[in-house]
């Protein structure tokens, strides 16, 4: 894990609207190649906003964002990253194969290349036999796998994931965690992962970035030194529990009690304009 950072944030701040609500404040963060970095924090701490800033889907009010050695905007235009949302955002009118192929169609890959790549990806996310199905015929977990396959289709250096497993049950979630690690290893990408779940963050990441409540600052960064490759047994190791406790303590320090969130305040995410 050496080389210049894939993502570099310097003093990034984002304030929304006339009322001046600050989502994130003075964020300094580097993500090195091949890392798996989780962003975790209480509701409204701006972690999703931060992810979108990296993806140039939200413009920071101040600060510098460098992705893959370029401005965030250029990185987006050059398609240096793939993004996975909590909602799979699949198009009902396309089959699984066509959903995965969508970015490749936009990149004007020819049909043979597309078909080959889609086949590869379907193997990667283990959806063999479902290529001609439609999204509504799949379970939530399977839909997310399609979403991940799609995000990886053009082999981006960076993968941005916004609570992709948030809507799934615990068992599916744990299973997909394992699969995600396998995919991460196989593809060699760098991943920035937003989550609410402490155990998920510790299990998946090389580093966990703990954010405080709004205005979101980086409260702490916890290095996760669990050995790779990780598997179901990893969750039972004493070191795992120690790290989970460490993260939990940092969260508590940064202020994480949801009950203390004032009524009417909600998660600040997303673009400034309503599409």
């Amino acid at each position: 894990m050496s080389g210049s950072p894939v993502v570099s944030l310097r003093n990034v701040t984002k304030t929304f609207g006339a009322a001046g609500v600050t989502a994130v404040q003075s964020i300094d963060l580097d993500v090195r190649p091949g890392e798996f970095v989780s962003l975790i924090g209480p509701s409204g701490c701006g972690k999703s906003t931060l992810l979108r800033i990296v993806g140039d889907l939200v413009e920071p009010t101040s600060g510098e964002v460098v992705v893959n050695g370029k401005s965030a905007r250029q990185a987006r235009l050059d398609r240096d990253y793939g993004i996975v949302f909590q909602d799979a955002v699949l198009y009902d009118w396309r089959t699984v194969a066509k959903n995965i192929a969508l970015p490749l169609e936009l990149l004007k890959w020819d049909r043979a290349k597309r078909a080959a790549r889609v086949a590869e990806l379907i193997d990667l996310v283990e959806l063999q036999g479902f290529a001609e199905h439609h999204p509504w015929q799949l379970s939530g977990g399977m839909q997310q796998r399609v979403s991940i396959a799609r995000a990886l289709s053009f082999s981006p250096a960076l993968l941005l994931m916004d609570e992709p497993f948030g809507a799934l049950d615990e068992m599916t979630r744990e299973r997909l965690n394992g699969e995600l690690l396998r995919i991460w290893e196989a593809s060699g990408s760098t991943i920035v992962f937003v989550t609410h779940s402490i155990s998920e963050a510790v299990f998946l990441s090389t580093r966990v970035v703990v954010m405080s409540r709004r205005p979101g600052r980086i409260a702490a960064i916890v290095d996760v030194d669990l050995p790779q490759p990780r598997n179901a047994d990893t969750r039972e190791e004493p070191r795992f529990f120690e790290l989970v406790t460490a993260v939990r303590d940092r969260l508590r320090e940064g202020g994480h009690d949801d009950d203390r969130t004032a009524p009417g305040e909600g998660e600040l995410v997303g673009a400034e304009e309503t599409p």
Partner: protein
Amino acid sequence: MRRLRRLAWEWLPAIVVFVLGIGIWEGAVQGLDVENFLLPAPTDIVRTLGTDGGELWDAAFFTFREAVGGFVIGCSLGFLAAVAIARWRTLQAAVMPYAIAAGAIPIIAFAPITNNWFGITGMTSKMVIAAVLCFFPVLVNTMRGLTSVHPSQIELMRSYAADELTVFRRVRLPNALPYVFSGLKVATVLAMIGAIVGDYFGGAPGALGVQIRRWVGIFAFDQAWAAIVLASVLGIAFYGSVALVERLTMGWHPSVRGARPE
């Protein structure tokens, strides 16, 4: 065999209702001795269609052409206008309420005026009425469909650095299809109404509305009712074709798939 079963499942209920309906109709008219002018028996109507079929068909088809012509023009213009306007969000937001309000104007009241403009006997005047009637529902529905896209879908496209045209083709347009078809189906009905009611204020001698009025005037109710039936048949065919196209292009949508309540 499976296809046949599917077709049967699809159409059998309607056929059953039809047969039952005709039966009840015939029985009621004969049994309750309903006056002929109010509602003749189905058998009378069929007989009339046999004897005067040619004349009836000509009249119905003439008016049908007026309706279809107006439909094609009005819907195309409505769709194109919506595509053009929805391109700029502020423009679309500004235009929308006025487009909706304009659709609230009784266009049919302008039939005497279009007759004055384009002549009573030509098809043009009725086609214009039908076209204007179709324009607004399609405009409004299409605009609505093009802009009610889930934000995530747009964000996803932006993450692919897709340009506006691509977003339009791949996201907004498919998203708008259900809305567009809703509008088109309403438009088929409006176009027929426009054509026939337009005739009431004066139309070509061969036009359906004019003929019906004449027949009612001379108490030829059998012909009048036969003509009405014919007009309905054409109207159904019209609506049905649009529904068919919808089924073919939109097999994936929940409402077409049949996410039916249990």
